[in-house]
């Protein structure tokens, strides 16, 4: 890329140098080699094509704005005019005219005419390249075509003069010249870039376009007046085609920038409205981008207030947001100011609460935008007339699901300061903020949900660890337990403790309710069991003491059902008490029955009432006897039709399998329950504890 650029530059310099040497030689020989002039003309054209390509390559690297383009063209054209005027005034060169031919007076003339001509060619190239980009901005179907037709006519008008002697008129040149002028006019209507300029840019653009217009007019006049000044002669001497090209280009530039000037002038009155729309659009765009990125309401509110200022040119603005739903419904709450600008909190208080029928309460009852055009004289705002700075006032409610969740306010010192556009823009802002608030709320909620889920997992984990990991083994007795927690955290609990060297305490219970609360009570129950069970060999005593310690801490609507049995592993004696729990199922090889000593659940009552409700039962287990403890998850399991598993089915399955091991009995029960509930599943925990007495070993 770099090398190509350098080649282009050096190529053109080389060609220009060759032309200069040729001219100087001609001058010194005072010769006239007619046919060589065509070759010289072609060489000059090639040199200019190279230099144009060189400029265009440099162009693509920068992306100037339209205003910069006009400014550049005006500057180059102006410099060129200045240069030629200085050279003309200094009279450093002159020509003699003989038979349609120009003869330079001296070598300096040759040099200066070459310099001026090359400069003119470069200015023309820069002008064409810039105007091309302006023409093709937002191009339509014929735009590009029109431009290239113009270029072809330029080229033909210029090339037609290649074999002419300077000053020699030609029909072809005139025809192409006229066609070029027509295309210049056609192309000069392509000014679509003006519409997208801001007001400020338009003013700059007008100044630059006017300067460019004058510069090109000057070039054009210098090139075409009949009493040829030095510039015109210099170009004609150097290259007749170049003279035509520069002249056409300056004409194009003058017409195009003249049109641009007039067009911009007419666009100026609407520039403000256009600017405003542009600001609104970009504000809304910024806002919606902010909503997806920012969940910080304060930041969002600040941005909205800032934008309200920019777009509506408000003199003060503030935003209220009501985090509390109930407050949002009535409007009788504290202010929810989250952002304010150019107004003090006291002033806002006056506006919001200065009167029971304040504009705030009006908006709360109507749920519509409220516009006060003349605040100083409006009866609705009479109460705030002491606030001299409020001339007009716009109040926009933020409405979500029929509720007002916030209010956006803007004021102006002027009365009748707000127009329909302001109402629409502020309503748009209000909608965006509403969405942002809703987003933030939703995220808050899902975070909350996640937190709860984590908590539940933790409770589940804790619950698992509260249950005994292993049951102790004894030669005479076979014990097996299982606890299958429901999907949620359940309240089932079982435990076992050695009370002394031969007595084992077995407890199974169910905490009312589910979730973290149940897990908490279960943990408490475990503490109570592990510490109190060793103090007494009477299940009833234990339950009374457990109830005492539990009653003060458990909340009113919670309770724990429990069954507590103490088994003497040496003798097979089983003593049990029941506190509101499911009865124990007791199966001997020949009989099966539920053992249900009376007793109410822990935490339901206290003192004598609780103690008197309790009974103690005593059983001497014989070889092959089975005790089944369980929670209501077993009996209350439901089939697909909604029928409970019940006590009868439990009896049946134990009756069928009582001769088998504790492990097998436990498995059979669980399988029966699961196949009964089938795909319906169970929504409660399920715990089974089986004790089988194998007889006293000797």
């Amino acid at each position, binding site marked *: 890329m770099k090398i190509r650029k350098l080649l282009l530059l050096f190529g053109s310099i080389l060609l220009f140098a060759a032309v200069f040497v040729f001219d100087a030689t001609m001058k010194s020989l005072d010769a006239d080699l007619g046919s060589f002039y065509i070759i010289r003309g072609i060489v000059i054209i090639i040199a200019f094509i190279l230099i144009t390509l060189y400029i265009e390559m440099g162009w693509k690297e920068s992306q100037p704005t339209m205003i910069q383009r006009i400014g550049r063209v005006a500057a180059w054209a102006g410099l060129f005019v200045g240069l030629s005027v200085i050279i003309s005034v200094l009279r450093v060169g002159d020509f003699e005219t003989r038979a349609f031919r120009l003869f330079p007076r001296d070598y300096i003339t040759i040099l200066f005419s070459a310099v001026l001509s090359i400069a003119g060619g470069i200015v023309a190239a820069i002008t064409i390249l810039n105007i091309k980009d302006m023409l093709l901005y937002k191009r339509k179907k014929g735009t590009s075509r029109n431009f290239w037709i113009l270029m072809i006519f330029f080229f033909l008008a210029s090339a037609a003069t290649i074999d002419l002697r300077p000053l020699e008129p030609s029909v072809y040149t005139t025809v192409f010249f006229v066609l070029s002028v027509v295309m210049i006019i056609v192309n000069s209507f392509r000014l679509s870039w003006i519409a997208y300029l801001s007001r400020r840019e338009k003013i700059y653009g007008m100044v630059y376009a006017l300067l460019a217009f004058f510069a090109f007019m000057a070039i054009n006049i210098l090139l075409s007046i009949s009493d040829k000044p030095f510039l015109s002669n210099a170009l004609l001497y150097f290259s007749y085609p170049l003279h035509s090209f520069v002249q056409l280009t300056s004409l194009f530039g003058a017409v195009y920038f003249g049109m641009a000037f007039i067009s911009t002038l007419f666009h100026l009155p609407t520039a403000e409205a256009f600017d405003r729309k542009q600001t609104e659009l970009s504000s809304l765009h910024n806002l919606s981008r902010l909503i997806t990125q920012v969940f910080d309401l304060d930041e969002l509110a600040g941005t909205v207030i800032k934008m309200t200022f920019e777009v509506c040119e408000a003199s003060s603005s503030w935003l209220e947001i009501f985090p509390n739903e109930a407050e949002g419904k009535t409007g009788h709450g504290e202010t929810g100011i989250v952002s304010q600008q150019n107004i003090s909190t006291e002033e806002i208080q006056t506006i919001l609460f200065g009167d029971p029928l304040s504009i705030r309460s009006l908006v709360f009852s109507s749920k519509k935008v409220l516009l006060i055009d003349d605040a100083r004289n409006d009866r609705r705002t009479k109460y705030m007339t002491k606030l001299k700075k409020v001339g007009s006032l716009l109040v926009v409610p933020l409405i979500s699901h029929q509720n007002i969740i916030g209010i956006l306010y803007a004021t102006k010192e002027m009365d009748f300061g707000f127009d329909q556009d302001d109402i629409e823009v502020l309503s748009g802002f209000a909608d965006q903020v509403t969405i942002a608030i809703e987003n933030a709320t939703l995220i808050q909620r899902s975070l909350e949900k996640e937190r709860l889920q984590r908590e539940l997992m933790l409770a589940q984990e804790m619950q698992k660890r509260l249950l005994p990991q292993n049951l102790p083994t004894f030669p005479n007795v076979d014990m097996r337990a299982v606890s299958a927690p429901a999907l949620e955290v359940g309240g089932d609990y079982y435990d076992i403790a050695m009370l002394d060297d031969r007595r084992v305490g077995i407890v199974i219970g169910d905490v009312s309710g589910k979730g973290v609360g149940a897990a908490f009570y279960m943990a408490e129950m475990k503490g109570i069991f592990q510490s109190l069970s060793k103090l007494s060999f009477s299940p009833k005593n234990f339950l009374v003491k457990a109830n005492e310690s539990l009653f003060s801490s458990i909340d009113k609507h919670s309770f724990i*059902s429990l069954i507590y049995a103490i088994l003497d592993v040496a003798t097979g004696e089983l003593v049990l008490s029941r506190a509101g729990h499911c009865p124990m199922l007791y199966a001997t090889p020949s009989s099966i029955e539920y053992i249900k000593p009376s007793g109410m659940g822990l935490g339901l009552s206290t003192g004598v009432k609780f103690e008197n409700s309790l009974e103690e039962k005593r059983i001497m287990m014989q070889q092959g006897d089975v005790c089944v403890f369980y929670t209501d998850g077993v009996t209350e399991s439901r089939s697909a039709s909604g029928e409970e598993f019940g006590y009868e089915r439990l009896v049946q399955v134990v009756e069928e399998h009582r001769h088998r091991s504790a492990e097998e009995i436990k498995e059979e029960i669980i399988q029966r329950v699961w196949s009964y509930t089938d795909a319906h599943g169970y929504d409660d925990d399920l715990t089974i504890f089986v004790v089988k007495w194998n007889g006293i070993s000797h």
Partner: protein
Amino acid sequence: MNEFKISFRENGKIHVMELRGYLDAHTAPNLEEAFQKLIKEKKFHILVNCKDLAYISSAGLGVFMAFIEDIRAGGGDIKMSNMSPKVFNIFDLLGFPMLYEIFTDEHDAVKKFDAKKQATK
């Protein structure tokens, strides 16, 4: 989802709540609301007719425990009647008959309330 419904009516001076369907952890808040409403209106003589109550879970039982103190402190009571054997069994297992008066028939319960009122007069 199993349905649960509460309907209110008056039997003389007694406020009768009829429970219908499944009373579990999901529906217990409805019963809580019902009790709160009655207590707010100072209607302390409450009879819960369980004729159409199909099931009650521990969460449902807990609701009765939550309000009984306030109601008794207000000079009233919660009595229950017309339970199916299955539902009675649940109440019975937990020892509710030792805490609440449970009647087979609503009429008996109302009579008991009235007798109590007579006695206090």
